[in-house]
């Protein structure tokens, strides 16, 4: 392979009179015009993210209706954006601890996935949800009622995590 430094190109006669070259270019654009369109018409046709996608973090709700979270507070500790707030409390269940309050501020969240990585119970995972537009500041703070998601909806992500942990 030679290193070419002189990129100056001498045009021949037909290139100098422009017209044939412009016609060539127009042929190219005409071909492009007739090609398949690449646009995804978003609000009607939604993108389905792959399991590796980090969307909004959510809490896993077991099939028996108990949350996995034991309110250890590691996610809150590791969160670089200080978006998570956990208040722990005790229950009569087998798992003695549960989060009395679990809030994620979606305006602060940077979707880094550290909370998911650090969680010992696989209780907080990144969901495929990417539509998060709010009209009010209060709407952006997700409490437990919004965060708790049935485990079935999160299977692909959980399997992905196990495969790549």
């Amino acid at each position: 392979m030679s290193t070419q430094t002189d990129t100056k190109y001498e045009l021949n006669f037909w290139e100098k009179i422009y017209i044939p070259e412009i016609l060539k270019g127009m042929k190219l654009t005409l071909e492009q015009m007739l090609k398949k369109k690449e646009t995804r018409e978003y609000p009607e046709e939604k993108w389905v993210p792959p399991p590796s996608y980090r969307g909004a973090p959510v809490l896993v709700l077991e099939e028996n209706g108990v949350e996995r979270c034991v309110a250890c507070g590691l996610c809150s500790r590791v969160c670089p954006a200080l978006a998570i707030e956990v208040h722990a409390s005790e229950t009569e269940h087998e798992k003695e601890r549960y989060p009395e309050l679990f809030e994620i501020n979606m305006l602060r969240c940077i979707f880094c996935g550290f909370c998911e990585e650090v969680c010992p119970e696989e209780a907080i995972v990144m969901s495929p949800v990417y539509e998060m537009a709010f009209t009010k500041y209060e709407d952006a703070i997700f409490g437990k009622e919004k965060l708790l998601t049935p485990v079935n909806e999160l299977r692909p992500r959980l399997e992905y995590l196990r495969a790549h942990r």
Partner: protein
Amino acid sequence: MDMIDILITMTKIVLLFGVVLITVAELVYTERKISAWVQNRIGPNRVGWRGLLQPYADVIKLLVKEDIVPAAAHRFIHTLAPIISITVAMSTLAVVPLAGQTFTLFGREISLLVADVNVGILYVLALTSMGVYGLTLSGWSSNNKYSLLGGLRSAAQMISYELSMGLSVIGVIMIAGSLRLTDIVALQSGWQWNIVLQPVGFIVFLVAAFAETNRTPFDLPEAEPELVGGYHTEYSSFKFALFFLAEYANMITASAVVVTLYLGGWQIPYLELLELPVYANVLLQILAFAVKVAFLLFVFQWVRWTVPRFRYDQLMNLGWKVMLPIALANVVVTGIVLLLL
């Protein structure tokens, strides 16, 4: 000239004006669609059926925006410039014949053009070069360095291309022996279109028309990446809309003139052999004219999304060192051929 004649002319003007305005609106739409298609996108498709009402939404948006005049601008000229642009762009079409067949209505013979001027070509050339005042004045009065540069560029560009445009038309005038556009079209019957007789003149005229209408590859006065919009940087709201309108109206005018001079205007080859009724003839001729203009408008937009902008020195080189000699040679060759025939 009595009241009815005046009324007929007024009706023609209003009709033509309306048609041009609607075409301009839809041209904005086709421009966006074609740009989208070239880039493998879909383009506007939300407002109205397949997005056909998009330009009207754009117009409403422009109208409700605030009209800003820079504090240091020359207020009067700043307002005058877009008016000049649009007036010039709109009035050129008056001499372009839309159909050759005349028909009688209310006992009067009605021809399908607003004014049958006997120096039609001169009128067209004179008015299109007036358009440069709109751009230059807007550039100067905005008191903005980018606008000024855009205005200056437009002036220089117009001067360079006006010459070759005029000279390329001379070939057509020599063949037709008349400056009246109706005569020129009438002579292009059958396949005797001027594009066949004057191919070089056609190319020179077309390129010059691109330059006259400030379309890519000669859109130096606007040149978004270098001049932040050029002459219309300091314009907003309705005045900006007027400039926008003028650009597209200019395109229609240029296409109509090219069709009239070189592509046989309303002529459909050998239509007269069919001996159709008068109204069918009129309609077919208008349709032929419209189709030809539409095709040229498509070419204008097609070229815009194909060819990159010329550099300023390249533009001047092309104008003075290439186009002008070719146009001159074309005049000489046409003259010799006409003498020998």
